[in-house]
């Protein structure tokens, strides 16, 4: 059962691990949003040389398990192309490039939800493609995408635990350290689970508030 002394002893150590978890999730989310936006626009392009690679990328990333992708990026890629990747960098790249595939589809849905009349109105004012996108389409598409992006953030927050297998010292990795030092699995894992709950619940609370503030009717 719960070892309360261990619980309070390990808590600060694990909370610092949770900060690392938040940090890598935030960075990979930034990467996945930026890349996802580009992919979404490319995926909807009329030009096949933009569209086809975007579709291939999305299908590939959604089809390969994230764990395999992370192992590949950390263990297989660096020696092959002769670079050196830290677990941190490999983790961000893996989470970000994989998340980008899902985020791209979220953005694509958001962009398609904007009525065509909006685009025509923007063009009638003299706006070109990019201006129409930036000023009229994306602000509306992003609002529509917020609930799905909240989901994606939570998924990424939990999936970031996978980077423990390549040695990134985040919440789960630290939990494992505590287990191996104390031979007690129950208390540290309970604590780890609780911290994830607080993180996910807190994020959805904040993001739901944001969603309400962004809605305009």
């Amino acid at each position, binding site marked *: 059962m719960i070892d309360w002394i261990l619980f309070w002893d390990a808590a600060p150590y694990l909370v610092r691990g949770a900060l690392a978890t938040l940090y890598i999730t935030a960075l990979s989310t930034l990467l996945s949003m930026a890349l996802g936006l580009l992919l979404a626009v490319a995926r909807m392009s009329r030009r096949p040389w933009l569209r086809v690679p975007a579709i291939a990328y999305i299908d590939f990333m959604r089809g390969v398990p994230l764990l395999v992708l992370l192992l590949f990026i950390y263990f297989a890629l660096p020696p092959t192309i002769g670079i050196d990747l830290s677990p941190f960098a490999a983790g961000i790249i893996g989470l970000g490039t994989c998340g980008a595939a899902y985020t791209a589809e979220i953005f694509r849905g958001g962009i398609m939800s904007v*009525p065509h*009349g*909006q685009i*025509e*109105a*923007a*063009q*009638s*004012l*003299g*706006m*070109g493609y990019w*201006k129409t996108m930036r*000023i*009229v389409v994306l*602000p*509306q598409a992003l*609002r529509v995408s917020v609930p799905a992006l909240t989901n994606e953030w939570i998924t990424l927050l939990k999936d970031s635990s996978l980077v423990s297998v390549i040695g990134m010292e985040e919440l789960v990795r630290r939990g494992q350290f505590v287990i191996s030092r104390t031979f007690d699995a129950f208390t540290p894992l309970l604590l780890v689970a609780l911290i994830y709950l607080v993180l996910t619940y807190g994020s959805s609370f904040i993001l739901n508030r944001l969603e309400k503030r962004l809605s*305009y*009717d």
Partner: protein
Amino acid sequence: MIEVQGLTKAFGHLEVLRSIDFKVDKGQVVAIIGSSGSGKSTVLRCINRLEKADGGCVLLKGENVLDKHYSLTRLRQQIGMVFQQFNLFPHMTALENVIAGLVHVQHASKAEATERGFELLARVGLKDKADVRPGKLSGGQQQRVAIARALATNPDVIMFDEPTSALDPETIGEVLEVMRAVAADGMTMLVVSHEMEFTRELADWIVFMDEGVVVESGPPSQVIDNPKMERTRAFVRKLASSHAAVDIPEPSGEGQPPHAATTGS
């Protein structure tokens, strides 16, 4: 101002426009009438190239705007457009909608644009709604904002694509009132409309279209009151009977929406 010559357009096998010719002089109000599916809206959409015409040309101040070397941005700054469904930007306030073209296309300073925006909102009687988003406005109010938006960039011509067709009957009057004021200011207007009385009162010239051709054109006194062609006669008769019950409000005070349509006896 605008001269449409031999304009053709097909969607697949369907020939929507088969050689359309007409012109709009500076300061004139030209109305295109005809039953739905006659290609009226397509004419407007081909003029500002929202739709790509298959053939013919559209001369704007003597230059063919359908030429692919004619800049789209330049074309669209000269021709404003008001849509049936308003198409206001829902994430912007009424004021931001009005000045969107000024700020983002003509790169006017924020202060300058805001001043002009308030002036235009006052002109359509909605100055007090400047900070309200379209979702909170009635259809008639939204369309008035859309007219202010079309006016903002100082176009040479404004095209109205069935501006009152999506409105509740009680808000049609306020939109027509604003259009009447815009016409009185000397704006060149090309209007696709079903409002027969309004068209008769305001239009200098009427183009009656059916099945992709101009059947008859002339002043309202001819096309509406004394049509030469059988097809025109049939259309006018049909429209007159369906619109017999609609009251067209009298012009009221400046900038104020009329109340004729909403106030009873």
